[in-house]
């Protein structure tokens, strides 16, 4: 069956599209966890907030979910700064970030979940958009726009973020703070300020990722838990702090999932994806594109 060109080419394309969406989910975590060492386990919960905003603005004003996700990035950026300031003042400043910080983000995750439940209830939320349900057939390959739009949006966001990180002073300072905080301080930059900007950026990606998630499927407050393991796995597999590594890892997971779903028993998809993670870490402990320590 794997030699069937229709199934094979569609499995690859579906895997790439899925990987593109996974990139959006993991991108913020790649900055927060990979570069800043902040175990933001609540990142998928912030993504769900993004989904609810997309739902609300779509239902109330007919706004396209992707547009909503992009428009609200400044709001999420500010939210990220606030969350980081609380985290810094409560834990990082006193050196308690490892365990207490983790508990903080766990708590934040539950608070977000419960708040969403109290405000919007527990019913499933979905969005309408002209491209949902539309399929482009190019030769033997199917491209459902419900997956292609999230893929394209995610790739644009990733390229933008990559250029920002590599071409701007603040971007390079973020990379520097992840490598040597003290050296950055000696060069006159304030690491706390740089980290709060980086964390703001991480959360800004959640706004877009949330909009993409609700395009793909229905959302309810506790659905964030489905993405915690996957997002962390992508960041670790790609190499801590490497944005290209995150993209590559997301594609590997997406393609692995698509291949197993097409050619084998879909039940094995998580085992194969996480097996790839274990195998990679056994060979390259720092991840695919991670720096050797």
């Amino acid at each position, binding site marked *: *069956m794997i030699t*069937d060109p229709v*199934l094979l080419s*569609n*499995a690859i394309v*579906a*895997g790439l*599209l*899925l990987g593109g*969406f996974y990139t959006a989910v993991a991108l913020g975590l790649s900055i927060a966890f990979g570069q800043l060492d902040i175990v933001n386990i609540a990142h998928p919960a912030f993504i769900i907030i993004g989904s609810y905003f997309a739902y609300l603005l779509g239902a109330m004003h007919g706004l396209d979910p992707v547009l909503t996700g992009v428009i609200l990035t400044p709001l999420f950026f500010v939210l990220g700064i606030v969350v980081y300031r609380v985290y810094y003042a409560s834990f990082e400043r006193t050196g308690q970030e490892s365990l207490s910080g983790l508990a903080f983000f766990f708590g934040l995750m539950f608070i977000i*979940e*419960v708040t969403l*439940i109290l*405000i*919007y*209830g*527990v*019913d*499933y*939320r*979905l*969005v*309408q958009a002209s491209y*949902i*349900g*539309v*399929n482009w057939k190019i030769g033997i390959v*199917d491209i*459902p726009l*419900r*997956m292609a739009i999230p893929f394209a949006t995610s790739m644009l966001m990733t390229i933008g973020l990559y250029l920002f990180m590599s071409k701007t002073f603040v971007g390079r300072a973020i990379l520097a703070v992840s490598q040597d905080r003290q050296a950055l301080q000696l060069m006159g930059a304030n690491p706390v300020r740089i980290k709060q900007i980086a964390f703001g950026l991480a959360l800004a990606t959640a706004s877009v990722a949330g909009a993409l998630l609700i395009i*793909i*499927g*229905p959302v*309810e*407050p*506790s*659905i964030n838990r*489905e993405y915690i393991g*996957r997002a962390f796995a992508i960041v670790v597999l790609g190499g801590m702090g490497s944005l290209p590594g995150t993209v590559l890892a997301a594609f590997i997971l997406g393609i692995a*999932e*698509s*291949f197993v*779903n*097409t*050619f084998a*028993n*879909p*039940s094995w*998809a*998580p085992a194969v994806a996480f097996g790839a993670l274990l195998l990679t870490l056994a060979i390259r402990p720092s991840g695919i594109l991670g720096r050797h320590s």
Partner: protein
Amino acid sequence: MAHSFWRRLAGMAGAFTALAVLIPALSAGPALAQEKTIKIGFSMALTGPLGAGGKSALIAMEIWRDDVNAKGGLLGRKVEFVYYDDATNPAKVPPLYTKLLDVDKVDLIVSSYGTNVIVPAMNIVMRKKMVFPSLFGLAVNDEFKYDRYFQIMPAGPDPKVDWSRGFFELAKGKGLETVALAAADAEFSQNAVYGARKNAQAMGFKVVYDKSYPPSTTDFAPIVRAIQATNPDVVYVGSYPPDSVGMVKAANELQLKTKLFGGGMVGLQFAAIQKNLGPMLDNVVNYDFWVPASTLNFPGIDAFLKKYQQKAAGAGVDPLGHYLPPWAYAYLEVLGQAVEDTKSLDQDKLAKHMQTTTYQTIVGPVKFGSNGEWQTSRALMVQFRNLKADDLDQFSKAGSRVVLHPPSVKTGELVFPYRQ
């Protein structure tokens, strides 16, 4: 400044102390009155994966309580609920039922919503020999064989198999031969597909695809494509709401060509999902338990739905309430009628009554069989027809879901095939 702050703080502390002393004293009167209430205890899935259903069930149960209390209560005593959120977490259920029975000293108990949170309560309930009306647990009593368990869901005496029998009888009636089975790796879906497999074998279908997928699956296109590659006449899916949506969308996007599609997809009964999917649901044949139809217009159902829809507006739950709420009302109706008929809260008397009586409820006549399931199945197979996009109202009327099975409540014929 600081002095005035401390004085204000002391004043507030004094006020709180006074309140703490006064509140119990003031509530002593009502407490005496509360001794006369009948307490019904339960845990409910108000959050977590089944939270959407659980919250709508609670609204329905509160309507029943208010209806009963408006008529003077049960045995002349007002009915009071004692309930806790089990968060759809099986581990939370045993301590909650222990607390309900040992600490809260409730007079009657009923189950939470869903198999996963009903099963963990069974041992505690059985130890206390309590009558246990149950809300949508699939084949829970197959293992426990508890003679005081009463399931309101009309899945029939052999629930796993009866659930999908109608679907396969429809397929057989059209001379179809091959079947693909896809189900989530979750308790309900696996039970549903187990029954589907049994029906397929018993009716001589050739199973050409039989696989499960993890509930966390994001993109269902590869699964639908793999199913299409086996070219089945029938595609039976056992799924939870997110995967049901994913499956239907992928089937539409990839133009899945099969003759009969649907079966055991949870979520396609929920108004928000129906509204969103709209025409993508056309010709899907799926299980349901109650839909607006002339054959299912039982006394009291319209009045109940009217009340429910008023309460549900803005509560973030299913706005139409066709799927679970009538049954949440009905399982309390059964319990209430048993209490009134036996004029007792004695669990032996209640159990005997429930084992032998046919109850008239808003979901029609209910008669339990020896294993506590409905004596005869009334699991519906309905087909979505001629749906418009983004129109919730169409689902509140008869005709958007045509009842194909069982013959006793049928309102139309199968439109065939699903897509060629």
